[in-house]
């Protein structure tokens, strides 16, 4: 196997990104320190919007950590060589994204110093507690999978390890969806559609991240992607974006069928101000329609336009999660059906929430942690996807 060296400009870009991410991660830590010392009063969150922007970042990364493994699964479980060549990078990205997401989630706790309590005391009925086990399990199983990929003596274990990762990530994303699906109190959640919707979202968002990371890595090493492989991956992204759209439609249409859910649907789809704008503009147009055009429109679908599509899919992901998490809490709890309620505690009123600077800093800091881990990983290990000619032919 020939060693691939980075160009000088590529090296400069590498260290530039490394320093930039390190700086952002430090700013994120500073924000977490501020939130811990002064309290969450410095955030935009309150007693109605209890989960805010940090949760949008954290859940995006955790869901994507699962989806990014799809590339590895197709390689190791279904034996496709084109994808197998990408499995190490997918595994690394998964670990980095999960670590970044959990960093944000942990540092947003009211008592992050008690994280050891969360790690050692489990309430068996809590989906959160199940997820703590699922996250730990993903670290272990992906770590083991990477080991089988890097150590030739462990090669016989690659397929079983790949299968374990394949099953585990579906269970993990189901668990993430269940965090909301089990919330019977709120109009936005308590739906069996949520776990499959989260799985579909993970596939689209994970692949979008993978494509961007692969593109950056290839540019760093001054390499080009084989057109056949590019075509296959971009079509896959398009299919995943369609799948998410289908499940988002199913979620809202089933809601709209129930009279008791209609006020909530009117809020999200028509009257919700920022929430409505993010749903239609952020998720609908920028995050779904535009990427599909960039991928499938004749004359487009080039590496550049697919890169733009992947970026837009991520933008749409943040919009959709913001609508889902913040919008779902903004809509007032229906405690007194048939009555108009008001109180000093926001009963009957749409919740107000404006993310504060520390929240942005914490969320972006989490992304920076994931980027740092990836940068270190690709430097230390040989994770660059290398395609041999036969694989490129297979992909045609």
């Amino acid at each position, binding site marked *: 196997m020939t060693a691939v060296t980075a160009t000088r400009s590529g090296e400069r870009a590498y260290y530039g990104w490394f320093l930039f991410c390190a700086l952002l991660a430090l700013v994120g830590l500073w924000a977490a320190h501020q939130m811990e010392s002064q309290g969450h*009063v410095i955030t935009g969150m309150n007693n109605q919007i209890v989960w805010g922007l940090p949760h949008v970042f954290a859940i995006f990364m955790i869901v994507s950590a699962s989806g990014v493994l799809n590339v590895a699964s197709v390689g190791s479980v279904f034996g496709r060589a084109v994808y197998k060549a990408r499995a190490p990078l997918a595994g690394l990205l998964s670990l980095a994204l999960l670590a970044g997401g959990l960093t944000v989630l942990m540092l947003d*706790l*009211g008592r992050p110093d008690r994280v050891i309590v969360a790690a050692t*005391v489990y309430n068996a009925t809590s989906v959160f507690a199940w997820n703590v086990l699922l996250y730990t399990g993903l670290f272990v199983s992906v770590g083991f999978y990477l080991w089988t990929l890097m150590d030739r003596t462990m090669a016989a274990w690659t397929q079983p390890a790949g299968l374990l990762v394949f099953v585990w990530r579906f269970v993990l994303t189901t668990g993430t969806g269940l965090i909301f699906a089990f*919330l019977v*109190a709120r109009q936005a959640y308590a739906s069996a559609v949520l776990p499959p919707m989260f799985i579909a979202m993970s596939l689209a968002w994970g692949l979008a991240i993978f494509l961007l990371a692969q593109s950056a890595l290839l540019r760093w090493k001054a390499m080009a992607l084989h057109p056949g492989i590019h075509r296959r991956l971009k079509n896959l992204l398009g299919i995943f974006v369609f799948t998410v759209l289908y499940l988002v439609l199913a979620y809202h249409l089933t809601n709209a069928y129930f009279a008791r859910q209609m006020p909530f649907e009117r809020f999200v789809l028509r009257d919700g101000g920022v929430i409505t704008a993010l749903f239609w503009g952020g998720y609908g147009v920028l995050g779904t329609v535009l990427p599909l055009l960039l991928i499938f429109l004749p004359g487009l679908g080039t590496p550049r336009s697919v890169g733009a599509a992947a970026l837009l899919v991520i933008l749409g992901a943040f919009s959709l999660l913001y609508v889902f998490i913040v919008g779902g809490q903004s809509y007032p*709890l229906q405690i007194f059906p048939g009555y*108009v309620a*008001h109180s000093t*505690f926001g009963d009957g009123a749409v919740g107000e929430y404006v993310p504060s600077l520390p929240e942005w800093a914490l969320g972006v800091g989490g992304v920076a942690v994931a980027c740092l881990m990836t940068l270190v990983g690709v430097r230390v290990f040989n994770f660059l996807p290398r395609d041999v000619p036969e694989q490129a032919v297979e992909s045609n």
Partner: protein
Amino acid sequence: MTAPAVPPRRQFLSQGAALTAALAIAPGLLLYDFARARPPGEPASSAVRWGMLIDTTQCDSGCSACVTACRKENALPEPVRLTDPQWIRKVELEQEGSGRKVSLPMMCQHCADPPCVDVCPTGASFKRADGIVLVDKHRCIGCRYCMMACPYKARSFVHEPVTDHSGATPRGQGTVESCTLCVHRVDRGEIPACVEACAREGHQAILFGNLNDPDSAISRRLRSVASTRLRADLNLDPGVAYEGI
């Protein structure tokens, strides 16, 4: 001839009988049952389930004595922003169509199947044997999942450092808290501060007592009047019931 003196023993017995009769009748006359003081070290018993019946027809929309009493009892700050804790709040309702107005106090409903307890990852949210739902402040990590799960918006997150520790219940920044049903008072054989304040104001809109005792005033009243459990569709069996809505 002088009248024979009543022997002291007989006098004691008759006075004792009168006192026993008064105690037996009293719960029917009073708007609450006295809780039996529990000796320290004795665990809460499932033979008891504490609950409340709130008569909204007796609740004055201009009165917030229950809220003030709770704040004083637990040293809670005056609520100014949505980040400030409110363990009990007054909710003003207007019926759609008829325009009928209702005022009521809203607090933790002390559900028999509390979603907050189900979802808490560390078991910090728990339910005592006597039905009181509490938060273990030493175990709460401040994830706020219980707040997401509560259908009654009954819980508050402590968003700022706590400076006033004069309240009866320990409080701490970064943890979740809610109505304790004045567990410290109940364990002493007293009634919750809000119930006492409401009675003091002459409204007597809150009846507190043991739901497991069929002869308690609250059980008898629940049998005789129409009452509603909020979000009854969720089947959480709240310990708090409302009349007049």
